[in-house]
C-alpha cells in the first residue's frame, strides 16, 4: 500500500504533502482547479492554479481580482516537493486531470471527463497512475452515447422540422462546454444566436486563440422575427424564462446525457431531448479507468455506490467518496 497522497476532507480533496486542495468547496489557500464549472470552482480562495484556457472563465465568473497561476497541459511544476501537471480531460475547454507525483507515488484526480473527442476541447488523454479519482455521473450501463455526429444530425433534422412549422429552435445547453460544442457542430446550418452568458465566454475563448464559428449575441434589441429561422442557444435555466415564452413560436430542445432515458425527457417537459453529454458514458468510464492501470479508484459524484460496487466485482479496488460535485451543476447557469 502506498502512502496516501490525497485525502478527502470537509473542504475538498487535499494533498497534505503539497498543502493544496483540488476543487475545494470551502475557501483555502491554494485551489488547484480542474475546470470552470461552478460545482468545481468556488469564490474566495487565496490563489488558483488552473489550465491556461480556464483562466478567462474564472475571471468572468468569480471576478477580475483573482490571483491565478496557469499551466499548459503536460508541463510539470513542483509544489512543496510534489510534482504537479495537467492532462486534458476532454470535458470542456480547458478542463484538466491533475497528475500528482511524490516519491514515485502517482495519483490522478480527473475532475469531470469524457473520452469522446468533441472537436473543441483538447482530447482526453489517459494517464497511468496508482490512484485514480473518477466521477460517475453516468455510471450505469444504460448510459451509452451515440457518436456526436449522429446527435448533431438529429438536432439538424429537428431544426429543419421547426423551420417548416415556423418555429424558433431553442436549444438548452450549459454555457461552458455544451454551448461551444453545439456552435461548432451546427456551424453553417443557420444563424446561431447565443445568450450573453455564452457570448461572454466565447469572447474569452476567441481572445485566447480558440477557433470558434461566428455567432450572434442576443441583446434587448434582437428582433424576434430574426430568430425565427435561426438556432438559439441558451443556458438550461433560461428555457422556462419569460424571454423564451415571449418568442412567438418556440420549440425547446434539451441537450444533456439525462435525455437518454424517457423519464428524463418527460421530467424536463421539453419538446425534444438530445443525449449529448460532456461526461463519460458507461463504456467510457470503464475504458478510462482500465487505461490508468490504477490499483485504487476513488469514485466521486454520480452513481458512486453502484459504480464502485461494480468495479470491485470486476477486480478493480474501488471506494465511494462523498464530495459536493455534481450538486450545483444545474444551477451554474444562473450566473
Amino acid at each position, binding site marked *: 500500500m502506498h502512502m496516501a497522497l490525497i485525502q478527502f476532507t470537509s473542504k475538498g480533496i487535499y494533498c497534505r504533502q503539497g498543502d493544496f486542495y483540488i476543487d475545494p468547496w470551502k475557501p483555502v489557500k491554494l485551489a488547484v482547479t480542474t475546470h470552470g464549472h461552478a460545482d468545481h470552482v468556488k469564490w474566495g480562495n487565496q490563489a488558483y492554479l488552473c489550465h491556461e484556457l480556464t483562466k478567462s472563465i474564472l475571471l468572468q465568473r468569480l471576478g477580475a481580482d483573482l490571483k491565478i497561476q496557469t499551466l499548459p497541459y503536460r508541463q510539470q511544476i513542483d509544489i512543496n516537493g510534489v510534482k504537479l501537471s495537467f492532462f486534458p480531460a476532454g470535458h470542456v475547454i480547458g478542463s484538466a486531470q491533475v497528475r500528482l507525483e511524490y516519491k514515485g507515488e502517482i495519483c490522478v484526480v480527473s475532475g469531470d471527463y469524457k473520452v469522446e473527442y468533441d472537436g473543441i476541447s483538447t482530447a482526453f488523454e489517459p494517464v497511468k497512475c496508482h490512484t485514480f479519482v473518477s466521477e460517475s455521473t453516468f455510471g450505469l450501463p*444504460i448510459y451509452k452515447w451515440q457518436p456526436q455526429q449522429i446527435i448533431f444530425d438529429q438536432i439538424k433534422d429537428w431544426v429543419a422540422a421547426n423551420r417548416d412549422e415556423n418555429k424558433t429552435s431553442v436549444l438548452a445547453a450549459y454555457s461552458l462546454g455544451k454551448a461551444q460544442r453545439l456552435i461548432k457542430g451546427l456551424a453553417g446550418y443557420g444563424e446561431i444566436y447565443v445568450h450573453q452568458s455564452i457570448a461572454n465566454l466565447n469572447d474569452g475563448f476567441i481572445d485566447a486563440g480558440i477557433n470558434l464559428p461566428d455567432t450572434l449575441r442576443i441583446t434587448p434589441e434582437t428582433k424576434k422575427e430574426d430568430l425565427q429561422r435561426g438556432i438559439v442557444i441558451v443556458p438550461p435555466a433560461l428555457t422556462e424564462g419569460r424571454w423564451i415564452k415571449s418568442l412567438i413560436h418556440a420549440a425547446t430542445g434539451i441537450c444533456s446525457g439525462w435525455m437518454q432515458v*424517457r423519464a428524463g425527457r418527460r421530467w424536463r417537459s421539453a419538446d425534444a431531448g438530445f443525449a449529448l453529454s460532456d461526461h463519460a458514458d458507461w463504456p467510457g468510464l470503464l475504458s478510462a479507468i482500465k487505461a490508468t492501470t490504477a490499483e485504487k479508484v476513488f469514485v466521486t459524484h454520480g452513481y458512486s455506490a453502484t459504480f464502485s460496487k461494480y468495479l470491485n466485482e470486476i477486480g478493480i479496488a474501488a471506494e465511494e467518496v462523498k464530495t459536493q460535485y455534481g450538486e450545483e451543476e444545474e444551477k451554474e447557469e444562473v450566473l
Partner: protein
Amino acid sequence: MSNKTNDKIAALVNYFNEADDVDKPYVIAMFTGKRPKRPVGTALLKQWAIEKSGIPDWLFSESYHNVGDLSETISLILPSPTHLVNRKLQEWISDLASLQGKDDPFKKTFILSAWDSLDTQERFIFNKLISGNFRIGVSGKMLVNALAKQSGTAANKIMHSIMGKWDPSKITYQDLIGGAHVNTDNSWPYPFCLAYALEVETESLGTPEEWQAEWKWDGIRGQIVKRNGELFIWSRGEELVTEQFPELHFLKEELEDGTVLDGEILSVKEGKVQAFSILQQRLNRKTINKTQLNEAPIGFFTYDLLEYKGEDKRSDVLSLRRKQLEKVIYNLQTKNIVLLSPIVKFDNWQQLAKIREGSRDLNSEGLMLKKADSLYHSGRKRGDWWKWKINPYTVDTVMIYAQKGSGRRANFFTDYTFAVRQGDQLITIAKAYSGLTDKEIKEVDAFVKKNAIEKFGPVRTVKPELVFEIAFEGIAESKRHKAGLALRFPRIARWRKDKKADEINTLDDLKQLLLSTLNTSIHGTGQE
C-alpha cells in the same frame, strides 16, 4: 415524443396520414390493448438481455430502478446492433405471433437476432410489442381524438368503432374508422353535466325547497344508452365500458329503446355501497372471474334521465326529469341492481350540514346540491349544481425523497415522496407535488440541498426530518406498493413544522383506516 397533448395528437395524425395502410389497424390494436397473447414472458426477456449484455443481475436491477420501465431498460442495456433491418410493423407482429407454441431456444434465437438488428428506439417498441403494455404516453382517448381529426369523423363514433369486435389482420383502416363492423348511430352519448365545488355558505343559496340534495357517490360516473336493441355504457372519460359490467346487461332486455340514464357505477353488495377500493378490482379488466363478481358486484345509482322514448329530455327541469326517472326505474323487472340515487330530505341548511357529516359511513364523498328547476347542461356551469364534499382523510408523514419540478419550478425540489413509520423503518406511502406556497417550496428546497443523503439521477434521498400532513380521498389495498396499500389523490395539506419525525403516523394507523372503510355496514340505499 413531446409531453404536450396537442403535439402528440398532431404526431399521431401525421402518422395515420403517412403510414402504410396495412400497419394502421395493428397500431390502433396496440394502443387500445387488443393484443395477442404474450409470446415470451418478461422474466425470459430480462434473462436473455442480461446474458447478452454481460452485466450482473443486480446491476440490471439497479438500471431498471433508474429507468422505471423494463422494455426501455433492455433496449438501453444491450450492445449496439450489428446491422439494421427495415421491416413493416405488421411483419414483426406476425412473426411474434408465430412464436406461439415454439420452444424457448427457438424464441431466444429469434428475439436475440431481432435485438441485434434494431436501434435503441426500435428495440424499445419491439419489446413493448412483446409485453403488450403499449401505454407510452398515448391514452385510448388521445388516439380516438387523433383518428377523429385525421378522418373527419365524430370522436364518439370512432370510440364505438374501435371498441367493437375486429381483427387487425382482417379489417382495412377505412372500414375500421368508418365503423363498417358496428352501428355507431346507436351508441352516441350526451356530454355529462358537471358541478363546481361549493365555495359559498349554503345559507346564501336560498331556501331548501329550491334545492334537491343527493349523496355524492365515489364511483365511476356513467351513462347508459339503450337504442334499437343495443346497450352501451359510457364512462365519464367517454370510454365505452359496456363489457366490463355484465351485471348491467339485463338492461338490454328491460330498458325501453331510446332511453339514456346518467348515474354512478358502484360496487353494491346487499344494498350497501362499497368503498371505491373494492370497485377498483373491477376496473379496466379484460376478463372478470367469479370471485371478483362475488366480492365486487356492480350496481348503478341513477341520477338523471337524459333521453326517454327517443326524445332529448335535457331541457326539462330537474324535478320533472326526476319524476320520469323514478317511473323508468320502478318499471324494471330486475330489482336492486339499477337503483335511484336517493334524495336526501332536509328542512334547513343546518340539518343538511349535520347529515353531510355522516357521508363517510355510507362510503359517500359528501353531498350534491342541484337546483330543482335546473336544466341538464353540457359540461360545467356555475350556479345550478354544486358538489359539497366532506373534508378529506389526513395522515402525518415524513419526507424521504425529493425531486425537481417542472415548468416554473424546474429549479426547485418540489416533488416529494412521503413515508410513515413501521417499527424502526420508514415505508413510502405517497408522492405529492402540490399544496405548498412558493415561500414554503423555497424553504423545503434549501433543506433538500443541505440534507441530501444520496443522489439517484434527479432524485435526492433526504434526511427524514420534515413532517407533512397529507390529505387523501380514499385508501385501498395494493400489492404493487411496499406498504401494501395506496392512497387516492394524495396531496400536501400542510407542513407540520410543529411536529417531529417521531410523531408521524404508523403504517398500522393506515391499515386500521383501510379496514374501517372495508367494513362500512350502514345502509346507503334507503329508497324513498
